[in-house]
């Protein structure tokens, strides 16, 4: 099956995306429940991006700080957007649009560092 995709931006000018790969799970506080919309996950900082491939990043989630590095993917990935196009009476119902291209991922595979300075609060939160 052939999938036809359309790129608006044109080759070479596509927006660059990146994957954040974590060894672990980001999950909401149990008290919050399912309403996770509009919550800030964390803060991703590029600490040293001197070399193109080996930039190091820190990712702060909750009271954990993760340290990771940028890894280039073997095969780049495309980010597509499915669009419903029933505009011109064309036979096709949907079409895919390229939003971005992913060539790198930021891999956080090390054990997170705790940022807790006040143990009481941590104790409290744990309980």
């Amino acid at each position, binding site marked *: 099956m052939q999938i036809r995709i359309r790129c608006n931006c044109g080759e070479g000018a596509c927006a660059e995306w990146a994957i954040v790969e974590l060894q672990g799970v980001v*999950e909401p*506080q149990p008290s919050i429940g399912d309403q996770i919309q509009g919550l800030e996950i964390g803060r991703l900082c590029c600490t040293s991006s001197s070399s193109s491939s080996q930039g190091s990043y820190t990712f702060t989630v909750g009271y954990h700080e993760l340290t990771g590095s940028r890894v280039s993917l073997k095969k780049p990935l495309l980010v597509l957007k499915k669009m419903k196009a029933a505009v011109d009476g064309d036979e096709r119902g949907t079409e895919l649009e390229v939003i971005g291209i992913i060539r790198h991922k930021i891999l956080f595979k090390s054990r997170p560092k705790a940022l807790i300075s006040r143990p009481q609060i941590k104790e409290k939160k744990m309980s």
Partner: protein
Amino acid sequence: MEMDIPAPEELEWLETNALFSEEEDYTVVEEVAGGDQAEDLTEVFRRKASDPPTTIEIQTSKKRPREKEAAAALEGVLADDERGVRRRASGDDSDEEWLRYSPPKDVAAADATPERDVAVPDVAEEKFISRFASEIEGGSMPVTGPCGDRVYAKMSSGEMGGTQRKLIREKPANYLLSEPISILSRRVEQDALAKALQTSFDSPIHQTHSTSQTVNEQLWVEKYAPKSFTELLSDEQTNREVLLWLKQWDSSVFGSQIRATTDDVLSALRRHSSVQHQKFSNLKSFFGTKRGALFSNQNFKSSDVFDRENNNLKGVSELSSRKSPVNHLPEQKVLLLCGPPGLGKTTLAHVAAKHCGYRVVEINASDDRSTSMIESKILDVVQMNSVMPDSKPKCLVIDEIDGALGEGKGAVEVILKMWAAEKKSIADKGNATQEAQPGKASSRKGRKAVALSRPVICICNDLYAPALRPLRQVAKVHTFVQPTVNRVVNRLKYICKKEGFKTSTIALSALAEYTECDIRSCLNTLQFLNKKKEALNILEVGSQVVGRKDMSRSAFDVWKEILQKRKLKCEKKSMSGCSGHGDFDYLYSLISNRGEYELTVDGIYENLLHLPYHDPLMQKTVKCLDILGVSDSLLQYVMRTQQMSLHVHQPPIAITISRLVAQVEKPNIEWPKTFQRYRVMLMEKKDLLKTWQNKIVPSISRHLSIKSFVQDVVSPFLHILTPPILRPVALHLQSEKEKDDLAQLVDTMVSYSVTYKNSKPEPSQKAHKYGAVPDASVLCLDPSIDDFVKFKDYQSEHCGLSAAMRQVLVHEVDKQRILRESTGRSMNLTDESSSVKQASATINAEVIPMINMTESSSVDGSNKLNAALIQRQEISKDASKTSSEVNKKLPTSGVNLRSPGNPKKSSGHPSGFFDRFRKEGSKDSMVSGDALQKAATTERDARPLLFKYNEGFTNAVKRPVRIRDLLI
């Protein structure tokens, strides 16, 4: 054998000499014919002088230096008649020089001529052969006849090129004699010259001439100073030990171990012990630098000799060092000679060092004695090989090392440093021999700290000078004792006879006694009197003595003088009334010279009561103590007003005491230590009290001065601290009243910051008392205030608490203190609220939630809580309601803590205040807990998402994911 070939000058001189002696032959005959009278002799010489032969002229020119040299020799010589002064006075009369020289030539010629029979009586008259070595002037030689008679023959010979010269040539390098024959012969020659000079003075011409010439007279002290070991006046035992010590260095310094005492020294020692005073034997005179420098010819020869000696020595040392690598240094590297002045310490050091073949390097009080200077000097002595022709090893003599305190200390420090270095390097003993070799040592020593490898002799007057304390432990100490008056008097008499000064033995002994056998001062006095042409006056010896070395006695001496009655003085007192006055003067000067009145009085005070004086009514004692009190207040006044002139009144005080209690028996004097000891103790206690006072709550301590505490409060305070009503039972068994008492006691103790602490009793005491229980410790009051009421043989009325009670108290007090501290901290934080209650409430609010947080409410937590509540009780005392109701409501945990084993009782227990507050507290905690909860949630909301790390888990299954899955 290069040295045996005489120098060209010498040969020339010998030639003229020989010629002269031949020429003189006829005078001998005449002299013998004319008898021995001096007038005849001079007549002969005059006649000779009248016809001017050419030889005389030659001789005068040649004789010039020799003449001087002979005069120099004479200075050292103990002349045996009164003409010494005159003789020296006409030292440089050149026109009669030939005269002086001729008489020994007579003798020499007489020896050489076949008319021996005639010559012998002449010799006998001049004491050339005698049974006693002391009667022979100059070098002598023992001769034992075939029948066993031993006589001493004078060694004299004028024939320089004769048989003796031949002997020298035949001698091998290693001598059988202690000294090379060349030196002996030269010495004999010198003697001959001396004699010539001396006889020439017999002529009446010079008698008129010399009386006026006494300007550059030498001091008798120097003139008659012992030049050889055998003449030392000091104690023989000490002499020998010093010599022995120096000899111990031989193996390391000279490198040879086989150097035993030379024969002539031994014989001299033997003679010395038998004959007290012998005439000057020219034993070591050739070492004198003075003479050597004056006469170039001799110098040349002597250097030759020394070179040879050195070669010889080196050969031996190399041999022996190869044989035996271990050398035997003396154990103590430093010799410390001490004793009163004028006993000949310096002389002994010099003579002994010279005797053992050292060059003496003296550092005197007049030299620069800073540490660096001393160090460099010692380094020089220890390391350097002298550039002088005679490379004798050096021996350092530090004179008057106790003299200047600061500088002398420097010297002591340097020596100690070197000694310590020596100790360190003692480990590698193998190097020691190498180090001893002066040549090789330099490279090694550059790296290491310098060690002492040459003998060092220190001389001091006061062995117990503080600066010398460290040295005393290191050094070998020899204390000089006074020689017997007899010995001194004999020597003085001998000198007086020599100098023609008329004295009596009694006068001399009085003088010696007065100066305490200080022979230097004796001699100075005698010479002074001789100059003034006065006779020594027995009665006024004190006023006549001059030239005493200024010296202060040690404190011990002063005390001894004060507390011991002088036996001799007592006798004198009976004879003449005025001597009591002298005694006073003596003591006065003694004490005021000593100067340290405080110490003196201290010493008197401490030793006074140990004296065995007769005092049945204690009157003397009372008087003495009164006097001491006067002295004390005087001292105090002087110190306060700084009027040092008032110190003049101190010696009479001591003298008064001396008059009262001095005994003939030797007092057993000890150094006063109590003052120092109690001073230290006072400082300690004061310090202790001060720190204690600082620890007490300011509201209390400001009403409590240390002085008044010690004087007034201690005893009652101790009574309060140890109430007898407390029963040593467990807390929960105590009655209500007891509990209150206990609480009060704890309160007192905390506010006065008194507690009990473990302190181990004295180990020995413990071992005796509780042998089985090794670590039995006793709880004592922490600032040991009970010490202030502890006196010897005094039992304080307050009874100590039992050990169990103390244990309880320790706990309670600790608890209370912690509480107070924490309150104090929080009090500082909160504002000073007007109502105490409010304050306490807020504090509770702060404290309790914290504990509440740890919901488990562990015993610890509640313990703390309860403690906090106890605290509150003191702060707010007004409200006391509803306690019982609250009590019922409350969980019993809080009360449980106080009596954990008895919950039943605690429920009914009206520990009212606490529970009231507890209730308040728990209410508070609810409220504030909610608030806290809220705060926590907001904080949690700030971090809605958490990261959960999946550690080390992988299923290790790779699963293909279709793109279809991704596309939903």
